[in-house]
């Protein structure tokens, strides 16, 4: 089932002197339960593309359709709400609220969505167990390693059962062992929860684990290969 479609998406940054064509006529489709990596040299437009898909930024032209909804048709307040319900995010850093515990960070979105306490507790426990941190549920982010923090972020991203999870260089600040662990967890969740993961990365070992690899060069899709 098609959950995400990009049609001739362009993003041009208009500076005072230079115009940067960061995303150049990209058309892509994603289906349920994909595990896709976006790769490419620095400045090739990975972050920009993920921001467009996530509705954090608006394309200069083209359309992005998530589960039948065209993002450009949404008002900014609707867009925030739409993100909350449909998209999970994992960023490179600054993922967690430092004053809240791992458990509370995962709960946060659910409480914004007014889930009942029981539902929240169940889902939080389930997710923290899935990322292997049920023992550390009451630790604050500062007491967790970088890898553990990213695992909490993954749990948080999945909390509200989104259509897909976007992760921009989730392993960039991690050592290779933590990076592999994180990817294994993501892959497991992808399999168990049937949730699509789209992540950008520079790390060849991470790329190796992806089921689909999209390569960007100068904002355009150079290759798009599916491997099993």
């Amino acid at each position: 089932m098609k959950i995400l479609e990009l049609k001739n998406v362009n993003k041009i940054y208009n500076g005072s002197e230079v115009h940067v064509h960061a995303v150049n006529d990209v058309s892509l489709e994603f289906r349920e339960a994909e595990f896709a990596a976006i790769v490419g040299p620095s400045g090739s437009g990975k972050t920009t593309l993920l921001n467009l898909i996530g509705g954090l930024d608006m394309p200069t032209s083209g359309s992005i359709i998530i589960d039948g909804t065209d993002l450009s048709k949404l008002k900014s307040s609707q867009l925030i709400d739409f993100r909350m319900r449909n998209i999970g995010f994992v960023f490179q850093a600054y993922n967690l609220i430092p004053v809240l515990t791992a458990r509370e960070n995962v709960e946060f979105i659910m409480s914004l969505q007014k889930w009942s306490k029981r539902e929240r507790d169940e889902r939080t426990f389930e997710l923290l167990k899935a990322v292997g941190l049920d023992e550390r549920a009451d630790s604050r982010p500062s007491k967790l390693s970088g890898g553990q923090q990213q695992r909490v972020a993954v749990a948080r991203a999945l909390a509200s059962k989104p259509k897909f999870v976007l992760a921009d260089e989730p392993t960039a600040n991690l050592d290779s062992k933590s990076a592999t662990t994180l990817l294994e967890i993501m892959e497991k969740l992808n399999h168990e929860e049937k949730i699509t993961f789209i992540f950008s990365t520079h790390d060849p070992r991470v790329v190796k684990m992806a089921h689909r690899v999209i390569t960007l060069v100068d904002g355009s899709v150079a290759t798009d290969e599916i491997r099993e």
Partner: protein
Amino acid sequence: MILKTAWKNVWRNRVRSLVVIASVTVGIFAGVFSVAFMNGMIAQRFDAAIDEEISHIQITGKDYVLNNDPSIYMNSGDGIVQTVSVIPGVEQVVVRKMITGMAGTASKSAGVQIIGIDPDAEKRIFKLYKTIIPGTGDYFERESKYELAFIGQDLAKELNIIRFSVDITVLSRLGEKEVPVEIIHKLKSISGRRFPNEKKFTSTVTSILTKRELKEYGQLIKEEAWSYRENSRMTLTFLDKDNNQVSSVFRIAGIFDIKNTMFEQSQVFLRNEVISRLTGMDESSFHQVVIRITDIRNSESITEDIRSRFPELDVKNWKELQPDLAMMTDYVHQIYGLFMGIILAALAFGIINTMLMVVLERTKELGMLTAIGMNKRKVFSMIMLESVFLSITGGIAGMIAGWITIILTAKKGINFTQYAEGMEAFGYSAHIFPEISTSFFVMVTVLIIITGVVSSVYPALKALKLDPAEAIRTE
């Protein structure tokens, strides 16, 4: 969840938040306590004016107050009293005769207002009889074959009826009260000397003692050094009803001590019948009718009522008799509000500044929160709650501190002995008992919450302007 997060966020930068909270605490404390102090001062002045000096309503002949002319009197005092007494809300009515004259002793004389009263009735309106200095007599209670006059402490000092001297007995009393020997030794040099007045005595003592000694023992020395001879005499000179000068010798009935120098210096009280006898004025004629009512809030309506019954007389309520006091009690709440407003405005700037820093520091985090779906209203309320927490914790701490201080000081009061002279010249006591109403605390609480909310608006709006894509872009 947002509430909890906001509260935890307050404690992220513990030191900074504590500094803000502490400054709010200090500001509110200072404000609340100063207001209680001013309030106590005004309330005391108000009570003194009503209970000792003017009461609620006064009736005189037309223009008596303006001219102070003893020939402007009311003929049928009893009739007026009867009419006024039955007006609902009137508690007590007394009549007074008033003439001007000179009070003199062998060494001094002073112009005074001589007031004829009925002591038993007067006691039910004025508390002057409760302010008698122990050992100086009573309020026309004892039998005496002499004419008696009741006077104020400052007049007694002026007329040298109260004297200051340091003799052997004073020195030994000071010794008993553990005044150091070197001070007693210094005081011996002025032993036996007579001083023409209090000022002279004070300046002499000041010149022989050091500043520290004065500060510590000055008050005590003064208290011990004054003396009053029982049955002191005083001559009153005034005009009788045919404008002949009359002089008569009086004994001091008692000496009252209130916190109003002017009043103490100028008022001499005699029995009504004594004035009648000496001036030949009719027994049933009076210059002034003084009325106490049960509820001061009715003073205007009752005044109107009396006025309509006696259009030919002057009827004045306390507000008209002491316009400055009336103005003070009328506007005092606005002044307190303004005062607290200024303090809170200053605090608001501190809070705004801090919260702007908070928003700036948390750009990425706030961007992340918007990205994952926290809407503008929620981001706004989170920042707003943080500011409100800052101001409320500080505000409550300040109010509690202020309230405790008020309770502690209200019992014994705060005594500014060194400023007594200046303050009593304006009728204000130098011994102040801070007091405050619950409604004031409610008002301050509301103001603090408003301050917190208002000062959060700008930083919170700043937080909304953040673009999530920009905010989370990592370099």
